[in-house]
């Protein structure tokens, strides 16, 4: 079955060469001028890439091999920073890594599953889906600081909204952010408020599944479950793939909500990696060590992304055209 290219979305399509690169016989002089203009117009980003991405990355790697407090000049210490990290001398390294991993492994899949569920419901042909779409999206546009204040109040054990709602059905709610067991799950719950973009992207993906496929499968007597399994999910897989990437990236780098709501506590239950990095760099002025921490997290995320791309080959549907 061939599907028109306009339906294609996702990684397969991203790396495709530019569609406008059509062969066109033109005099050399004009072609050279076009090339020059092109390079000049793209120059800002290329310079920006060197100045604000590639340059800092390399500089950060160097800084990670030094001891640097920003007052005296950096002192070369070789791999000492990394040894301090992995040997457990820094007792917060593994702890914050553990907190972050637990958060990512719960929060990211939950985001995808709930996002799919909401997108699926909003894709039904019923009235009022526009209204619900806005309701679900609205919290995502709130400033994270405002959201942190809001959730601190909602999670208040004695006067907060959650425990009041639970008391209506006769449940005595936990201490949420004040409880070492519940503080991290509270962060996961709060993060669900930021599901809007994932949901909308998945919904756009659903709406781009060609109706003919469903009609054809119905004629062939496929059940709803079969058409979900064999049409919807494969057609949606590139979008799901993309949503997972953004979730891995953002949840590994969680900072603001933990910084404002719990400052890592209680008893380090929400001491995220980024919080540790921040405290090392801007609290303790250990810029060298913090740079090493940053590089380690960078490598971890890249490993996750590479694994994701590798595994993606097994389940992401790529149409052949």
């Amino acid at each position, binding site marked *: 079955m061939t599907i028109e290219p*306009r339906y294609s*979305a*996702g990684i397969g*399509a*991203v*790396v495709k*060469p*530019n569609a*406008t*690169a059509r062969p066109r016989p033109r005099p050399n002089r004009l*072609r050279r001028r076009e*090339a020059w203009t*092109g390079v000049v*117009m*793209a120059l*800002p*980003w*290329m*310079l*920006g*890439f060197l100045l*604000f*991405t590639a340059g*800092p*990355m390399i500089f*950060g790697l160097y*800084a990670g091999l030094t001891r640097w407090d920003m007052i005296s000049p950096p002192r070369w210490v070789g791999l000492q920073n990394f040894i301090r990290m992995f040997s457990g001398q820094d007792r917060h390294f593994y702890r914050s890594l553990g907190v972050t991993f637990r958060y990512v492994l719960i929060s990211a899949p939950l985001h995808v599953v709930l996002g799919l569920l*909401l997108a699926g419901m909003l894709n*039904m042909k*019923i009235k009022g889906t526009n209204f619900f779409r*806005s*309701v*679900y999206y*609205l919290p995502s*546009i*709130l400033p994270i600081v*405002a959201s942190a*204040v*809001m*959730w*601190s109040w909602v999670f208040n054990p004695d006067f907060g*909204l959650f425990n*009041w709602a639970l008391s209506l059905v006769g449940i005595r709610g936990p201490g949420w*952010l004040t409880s070492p067991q519940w503080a991290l799950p509270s962060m996961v719950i709060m993060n669900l*408020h930021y599901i809007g973009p994932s949901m*909308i992207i998945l919904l*756009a*993906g659903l709406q781009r599944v060609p109706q003919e496929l469903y009609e054809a499968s119905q004629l062939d007597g496929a059940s709803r479950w079969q058409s979900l399994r064999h049409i919807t999910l494969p057609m949606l897989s590139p*979008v799901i793939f993309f949503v997972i990437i953004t979730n891995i990236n953002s949840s590994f780098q969680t900072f*603001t909500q933990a910084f404002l*709501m*719990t*400052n890592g*506590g*209680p008893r380090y239950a929400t001491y995220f990696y980024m919080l540790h*990095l921040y405290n090392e*760099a801007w609290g303790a002025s250990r810029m060298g060590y913090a*740079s090493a921490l*940053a590089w380690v*997290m960078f490598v971890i995320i890249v490993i996750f992304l590479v694994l994701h791309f590798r595994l993606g080959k097994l389940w992401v549907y790529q149409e052949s055209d």
Partner: protein
Amino acid sequence: MTTSSWQQSIKLQNAIGGAAAYVLLVLFGLPFIVPLLFVISTALKSASQVYVNPPVWVPLPPQFSNFAQAWAVAPFGRFLVNSLITTFIPMIGDVFVSAIVAYSFARLRWPGRDLVFSLLLATMIMPGIVTFIPTFIVFARLNWVNTFLPFIVPAYFGGAFYIFLLRQFMLNLPDGLEEAARIDGANTAQIFTRIVLPLLGPALATVAIFSFMARWNDFFGPMIYLHSPNLKTLMLGLAFFESMATGTGGSYGFLSARLHLLMAITTLIALPCVLLFIVFQKYFVRDVITSGFKL
């Protein structure tokens, strides 16, 4: 089973499915919207109505004076000006420089273009964590701490995601007009400003909204670069007010005599985003995504 009764049973099935979907949509929707109402309701309470169980939902009479009172707790007027500066000046760079770069990727042919573009795609998913500290060290060396330059300067080199979005949009524009103008002897600068930019309207608006949200809501950047009190942004002011009102670094107990004022200022600071969302909804929930994903 006759055809009509078969159709009826399908209809009934759909009706039941629809009703179930409504129930679920409402149930799921409650936790998305009620916390917001809870904050607004608290913002309108008098101090004595705040710590009450069960909560007062409609405070009578609503204390609208809370907003003015909260605004006066810290120099929020100054913070507002700073937020406007760190939002709008970079936003112009985000929008127009990104558009220029995007045009080059979408329409002009030059050696290495596709390679550079895949580099751009890679930076889109590259974790930013690795550049925070080195960038800070360099900006600190340049004496840019306690200035707005760390926000303004990088914006005028274009943003990868914005460039990507605009390029996708341009690829979907018919290029007949541009060809015709070129045959008539127009140069690239003329084509870009007179033909392409006007056609880009919706895409530029999308980028402007994205840029506004990212910069207005930013907390980490202002926190590490803006220390002097008269340079702080609204987000820093709000965080400062929170730690002051609750008296702790974190909000464990979260008891404060000024909680209603904290909620009032939170409402005010979130308001521009909510209004923007209501007015430009289609850019958030429709056009943005379809333009980004029409690959």
